[in-house]
């Protein structure tokens, strides 16, 4: 196996800003997104007939927006449990790629620590972490824990809050909160491209991912289309980079 010693497991020299507090601070820009989407998820779960305790358990143990929306929708549609769980597996299978992509930036971690970091990984904490990784070439355990826990606690609180008022909430779209999610993806994509300084190549990869997700959606469900798009676009990026 070839080894990239530059990125991987470099000798332990302290990583700048590897504190819990810095992780908390770097999470703050994403909180509006977590709060509004978490709130919306709580409302939807309540409307689907989940009790407050079930909503709390769902967000504490599953902790995945897409999975929770799907669980609520499919429970409301009285789908069998096995079908719901299988669907959720495919929806969240993209985490395989996110988890793999940040792994090389951490120094060697104990099994317990890497389990803990991975268990709270989301699209958004991944976005923040991979931008940080571009700037620093490394990620610190404490920083990641601060980032993860802040996102987690806000998500769970927002979920329960949504569940509490779920019975009489007006349409959240009126407040534009449904745009918090695409807004956050726009920000994370742009910041990623700014920090990488490979703008042309990244733009091609992004366009490739967008085209692939649209084309794949004609053939398969959205969660599978996402995975296909990531595989196609990352491969295209690697090939185009080689050509240069």
């Amino acid at each position, binding site marked *: 196996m070839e080894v990239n010693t530059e990125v991987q497991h470099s000798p332990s020299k302290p990583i700048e800003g590897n504190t819990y507090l810095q992780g908390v601070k770097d999470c703050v820009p994403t909180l509006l997104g977590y709060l509004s989407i978490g709130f919306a998820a709580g409302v939807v779960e309540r409307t689907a007939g989940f009790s407050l305790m079930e909503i709390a358990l769902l967000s504490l143990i599953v902790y995945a927006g897409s999975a929770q929306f799907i669980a609520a929708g499919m429970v409301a549609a009285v789908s069998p449990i096995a079908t719901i769980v299988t669907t959720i597996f495919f929806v969240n299978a993209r985490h395989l790629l996110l988890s793999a992509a940040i792994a090389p930036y951490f120094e060697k971690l104990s099994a317990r620590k890497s389990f803990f970091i991975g268990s709270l990984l989301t699209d958004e904490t991944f976005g923040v972490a991979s931008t940080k990784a571009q700037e620093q070439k490394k990620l610190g355990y404490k920083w990641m824990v601060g980032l993860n826990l802040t996102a987690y606690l806000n998500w769970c609180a927002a979920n329960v809050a949504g569940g509490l008022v779920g019975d009489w909430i007006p349409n959240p779209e009126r407040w534009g909160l449904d745009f918090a999610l695409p*807004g956050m993806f726009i920000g994370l994509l742009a910041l990623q491209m700014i920090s990488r300084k490979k703008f042309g190549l990244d733009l091609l990869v992004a366009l490739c991912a967008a085209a692939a997700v649209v084309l794949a959606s004609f053939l398969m469900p959205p969660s599978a289309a996402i995975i296909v798009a990531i595989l196609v676009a990352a491969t295209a990026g690697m090939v185009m980079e080689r050509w240069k």
Partner: protein
Amino acid sequence: MEVRWHIFLLIVGSAIVTLIPRVLPLMVLNRLRIPEALLRWLDHVPVAVMAALLAQELLLADGKVDPGRNLLEIAAAVPAFLTAFITKSLFATVIVGIITIVVLRLVI
């Protein structure tokens, strides 16, 4: 405040299938030496992930290709992108996007 048995099973099952893809690559790849080619491939994953998720939000509706249903959202994405590149602030990007969509919905 009860937890129904079948919902409990659903939560535990969903938790397991969500947890495994999250932790497995980190636990394995953090200990192994990753081949150079895989590293170069993984390097493109963040941009690909964010672009794919964004495209799905903006261009698809209920899993169907239907950009026409999201014209206002696509329009609001433009100032949000500009804000991101000018301010380099995630928070400002989200706020500008939300304000734009609210204004567009009020006006149109």
